[in-house]
């Protein structure tokens, strides 16, 4: 029961029922909380309509290219990130565990935001936040303490829904790739798109909606000359598409060998951006209504991105809107669904890697991973210091962890153990969309060089200025400390012996395009 490899060394792994099932899961993973609460605000702050130009360039140059690199690695080397990099070179295995560690860290705090949104679905029905949603959120709901202390006393109003979210996610993961993750995405993703569309249509009918859209789309052309705007666009695409986390690598490893990688990659990337544009329209139409109600300009509004947008600004709007309760239920249910599909993908990377390394069944691996991550998640993030810890961990793991992972992947496959040509030919031999040598240059050199400059400037800023108004002990423990924990964890997991015969592996030969054309 426990062992999951055959005597011949073939690893027992799940498989998607079809390419369509994989596509839904990949889109579900890409469409997350960031599409709804991050993109509209980032676009607006970085040039409005003009931001869409660097955004589209980033989508094609960095998003789709890196996404296809992830797809190609997982599909060719048939495994979660540690398997993939071990099969490239034994010493590269640690890079795979680094990605698993990043997913682990993200999933323990990501779950709590879904739990908040789940509670807010219920709060919406009675507009429980009253006339002061900001005080309600910080003081009553989170019972948040200041940044000067670490208070791990549980907040039961968060603890219970968070525990429920973990139980739901782990049951889905325990059912395996096809019966669990795929089935859940087949239900959650269409439901998310349907509910969100209804919400956007309602938002567009509100007074002031057009002013909101005008603010969102009016281009500030001078922004195009600002390097920071381009960095914001590339970062948005990178985080939004979930590249370099190991998610797409893991998902593509469950695809049958004859699958259209290029086609599915472009559909997933464009579907993610299509949803982001839709979210921008919905959010700014709603903000336009708020500005209209308050008799101010949209540009004077605050809290138009992130947690503030969802849990303070939107409740304020819901209270002043005719039929606000229903609008609130739609909005927070969309957040829960978008979050759940992304959380499933994060947990699948960790559970899948544990399954591959220790030859466990999906159920056993889900129980192990779920117990550890659930306990950490409940202790740290269902506490009175939960919001502060979340903010710090989120910033460091994304700005340093994910970006360093992307650079290391590119460095590994472009220079240390060159595989770009073979990966490109691997994609091309099963795809309707062909990659040229330009792809090697983009993923091997240009995009990593951009990411490296971003990473260096972020590190230097965090070292010299710290992060926000947080005290040094907090950023050292939950910022740099979490990165150190991830690095040490990756090292130790690399040292652990494989219970699967990971090195007995047969690669499918690639056929260079020229030869095939003869």
């Amino acid at each position, binding site marked *: 029961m426990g062992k999951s*490899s*055959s005597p*011949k060394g*073939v690893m*027992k*792994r*799940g*498989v998607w029922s079809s*390419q369509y099932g994989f596509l839904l899961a990949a889109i579900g993973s890409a469409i997350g909380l960031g599409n709804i609460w991050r993109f509209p605000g980032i676009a607006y702050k970085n040039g*409005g*309509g*003009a931001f*869409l130009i660097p955004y*589209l360039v980033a*989508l094609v140059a960095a998003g789709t290219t890196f996404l296809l690199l992830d797809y190609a690695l997982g599909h060719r080397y048939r495994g979660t990130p540690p398997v993939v990099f071990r099969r490239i070179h034994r010493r590269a295995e640690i890079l795979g565990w680094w990605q698993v560690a990043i997913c682990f860290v993200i999933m323990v705090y990501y779950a709590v935001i879904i739990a908040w949104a789940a509670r807010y679905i219920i709060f919406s029905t009675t507009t429980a936040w009253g006339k002061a949603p900001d005080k309600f959120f910080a003081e009553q709901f989170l019972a948040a303490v200041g940044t000067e202390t670490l208070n791990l006393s549980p907040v039961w109003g968060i603890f219970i829904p968070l525990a429920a979210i973990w139980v739901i996610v782990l049951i889905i993961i325990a059912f395996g790739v096809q019966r669990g993750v795929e089935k859940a995405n087949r239900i959650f993703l269409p439901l998310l798109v349907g509910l969100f569309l209804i919400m956007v249509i309602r938002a567009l009918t509100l007074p002031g909606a*057009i002013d909101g*859209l*005008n603010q*969102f*789309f*009016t*281009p500030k052309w001078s922004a195009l000359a600002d390097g920071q705007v381009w960095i914001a666009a590339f970062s948005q695409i990178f985080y939004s598409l979930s590249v370099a986390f190991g998610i797409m690598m893991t998902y593509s490893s469950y695809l*049958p*060998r*004859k699958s*259209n990688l290029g*086609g*599915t990659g*472009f*559909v997933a990337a*464009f*579907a993610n*951006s*299509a949803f982001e*544009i839709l979210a921008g329209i919905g959010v700014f139409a709603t903000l336009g209504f708020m500005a209209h109600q308050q008799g101010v300009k949209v540009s004077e509004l605050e809290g138009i991105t992130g947690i503030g947008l969802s849990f303070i600004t939107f409740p304020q709007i819901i209270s002043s809107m005719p039929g606000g309760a229903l609008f609130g239920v739609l909005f927070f249910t969309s957040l829960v669904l978008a979050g759940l599909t992304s959380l499933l993908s994060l947990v699948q990377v960790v559970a899948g890697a544990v399954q591959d390394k220790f030859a466990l069944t999906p159920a056993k691996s889900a129980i192990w991973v779920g117990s550890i991550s659930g306990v950490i998640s409940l202790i740290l993030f269902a506490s009175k210091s939960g919001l502060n810890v979340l903010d710090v961990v989120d910033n460091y793991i994304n700005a340093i962890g994910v970006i360093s992972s992307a650079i290391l992947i590119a460095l590994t496959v472009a220079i240390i153990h060159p595989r770009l040509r073979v990966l490109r030919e691997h994609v*091309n*031999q*099963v*795809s*309707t*969309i062909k990659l040229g040598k330009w792809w090697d240059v983009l993923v091997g050199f240009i995009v990593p060089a951009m990411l490296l400059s971003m990473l260096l400037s972020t590190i230097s800023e965090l070292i010299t200025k710290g992060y926000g108004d947080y005290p040094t002990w907090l950023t050292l423990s939950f910022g740099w400390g979490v990165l150190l924990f991830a690095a040490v964890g990756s090292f130790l997991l690399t040292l652990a012996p494989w219970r699967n015969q990971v090195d007995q592996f*047969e690669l*499918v*030969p690639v*056929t260079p395009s020229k030869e*095939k054309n003869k």
Partner: protein
Amino acid sequence: MSTSAIALMSVAMILVWGGLVWFAWNLRYRKVPVLPAHTEELIARLEAEEAAIR
């Protein structure tokens, strides 16, 4: 809405949603390349081995 805002909104929608429709059509209707016989045989064997232990 200003003319420039309408123009940017239209361009973004046409490129992103149009791109999505185009790639979805491409995925659904364009035929994937045929692999050499020896590769097809290898894939069939590997997938049969995996299916046998699943």
